């Protein structure tokens, strides 16, 4: 099953590689991993999307907790949560494609953030499946380049991850 795990860790050099190293050393799967400092500059917040059986997910959270730099871990998928991912897509925008791309971007509530006479760069935010759907909806040949951040997640309502 797909799980989205959120954690707070000391914002120190090498902390990220401890987490990444743990996943590769124990052959856990990483679908995506995002990390950035929080409002408290001594802490970083990381979101990891992974897949595994319940036993494997239990081991992943335990092993993450065991890392000395990790302060707190929660499995967001255990309760209500919101996840968002940012994608930038550069598309061909010439001739009749130009109007088509603008329309598709509007339908998916994207924003065109860079324009040349041949291309648009579209910014799109949403859950991963929404971004997938957008790419599906586009003519494959029109896509020049994509970049995605991987998911960031947060608990709904009163579920708060804080030190």
């Amino acid at each position: 099953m797909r799980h989205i795990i959120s954690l707070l860790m000391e914002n120190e050099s090498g902390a990220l590689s401890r987490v990444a190293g743990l996943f590769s050393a124990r052959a856990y799967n990483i679908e995506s991993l995002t990390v950035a400092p929080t409002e408290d500059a001594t802490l970083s917040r990381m979101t990891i999307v992974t897949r595994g059986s319940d036993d494997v997910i239990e081991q992943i959270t335990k092993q993450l907790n065991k890392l000395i730099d990790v302060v707190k871990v929660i499995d967001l998928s255990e309760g209500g949560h919101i996840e968002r991912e940012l994608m930038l897509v550069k598309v061909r925008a010439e001739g009749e494609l130009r109007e088509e791309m603008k329309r598709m971007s509007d339908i998916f509530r994207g924003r065109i953030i860079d324009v040349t006479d041949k291309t648009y760069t579209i910014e799109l935010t949403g859950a991963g499946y929404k971004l997938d759907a957008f790419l599906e909806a586009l003519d494959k040949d029109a896509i020049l380049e994509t970049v995605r951040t991987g998911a960031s997640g947060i608990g709904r309502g009163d579920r708060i991850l804080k030190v």
Partner: protein
Amino acid sequence: MELTGAEIVVRCLAEEGVEFVFGYPGGAVLNIYDEIYKQSKFKHVLVRHEQAAVHAADGYARASGRVGVALVTSGPGATNAVTGIATAYMDSIPMVVISGQVPTPAIGMDAFQEVDMVGITRPCVKHNFLVKDAKDIAVTLKKAFYIASTGRPGPVVVDIPKDVTQLKAEFDYPKSVKLRSYNPTTKGHTGQIKRAVQMLLEAKRPMIYTGGGAVQSNAAAELTQLVRLLGFPCTSTLMGLGGYPATDPQFLGMLGMHGTYEANMAMQHSDVLVAVGARFDDRVIGNPEHFEQGGRKIIHIDIDPASIAKRVKVDVPIVGNVRDVLKEMIKLIQASKERPEPSALKTWWTQIELWRAQNPLRYDHDSELIKPQYVIEKMYEITKGDAIVCSDVGQHQMWAAQFYKFDKPRRWINSGGLGTMGFGMPAAMGAQLANPGGTVACVTGEGSIQMNIQELSTCKQFNLPLKIILLNNRYLGMVRQWQEFFYGERYSQSYMEALPDFIKLAEAYGHVGMTIEKPGDVEGALKEAFGPSLKERLVFMNFITDQTENVFPMIPAGKGLNEMILV
């Protein structure tokens, strides 16, 4: 008070009450070595290879229960230390390893003797640090000792660039340190402990299975009390030997791949199993699917939550310090009026005695060749079971574990998890330093001993009167055994040709050498070596043993506990 980084390092070690630093100098640690020269608070033990420094610190830690300390230079010094660090990590040994690093501005420049020590050791340490500023040295070392010795112990590496040891900073050694991200649970959950006790009192076919955690948390007394209070059978992993007295009738011997028949059968057929600081690893339970068919209820006590439910499903997990949890269990049992049903327990013991009667640890006593088991048995008699036995890795390790009866903890020192050949002699050096005047034996093979043979020189320099029991079968015995059983007797690269003359070798290093070729000479040689006339000398005993002897019983890899090959 302003001190240089190197002065701070040395002062911190003194503040921690470190007795011995095992190390080897080199460019990046010259400032630290200069300060060591000027101080007298701790003794530096110069090894002949950095791997041995770490194993010696490890042996010291296992024998004494204190944090072992090693000091190595950057680059090759650091990489040589890695095997030792991984060995300590697998067996959860408290240790601080200080490595030199190239000066800060040179990091990343592919400088002479540069290696990314923090990166290389990341997967085999409990934690590691790169110190970038002299003012951080004291607090980092305090954290290192704290992390290494608390919770589930383990090695911590502190990598210090050369310029950081040169620069000055204010020295103030913190009395204690707190980390918001590290708060190991030590007290077991009371509700869970109550559930566990209830389950034990209702058990019909109980079994207590103890591991290295019982030794590490100094819980031997509590463990013994609990086992006797309940009248249950008790077995131990390779790492846990000595946690429960081996000569006690309630002890079923070691379990696992080369464990006794009774221990493995009782594990498989028990209805309630308590794991005490043990982790159900592959050499212990064999195939986990097969093991789970037993359908027993499992209580698992361990300081590390990640060890629980890793390989087998557990009914009552108890995260906490083994000793504290056992104390609480004993209290509850003593307060309870209930006791395990005597008739059920009697039936269970009757079954166990039937298994025990199979005695697969037997060997041929009438052989004209020296049987390795015989050497260990005689050594056990002559040392009255009171030696500290350090071992290398292979057949001799298993025979020592099977035939030396450890009644006390911290007397059996071996590389259980990583299985590091070359561990024995350096570990014995550390154990000897931790027990000056004590009898320390190193049981080894001609393969293992040659992996760190250079340490005979260190033993000479520091007057370490080890008794080296070389069970020399001219084969990499355990490799040969597997090749015989599973590879059609194709002995690929397992024969040791061109062995040195071990007597001359021992003598060249300034020690006493002996070669023993007949069973009739074994006892006399051991008596001489362990006797008063050679008390102050290292004695290297080369026992020429039966080449074809195998370790039995044996559970082939991937098989179940009740699928043993007996003899």
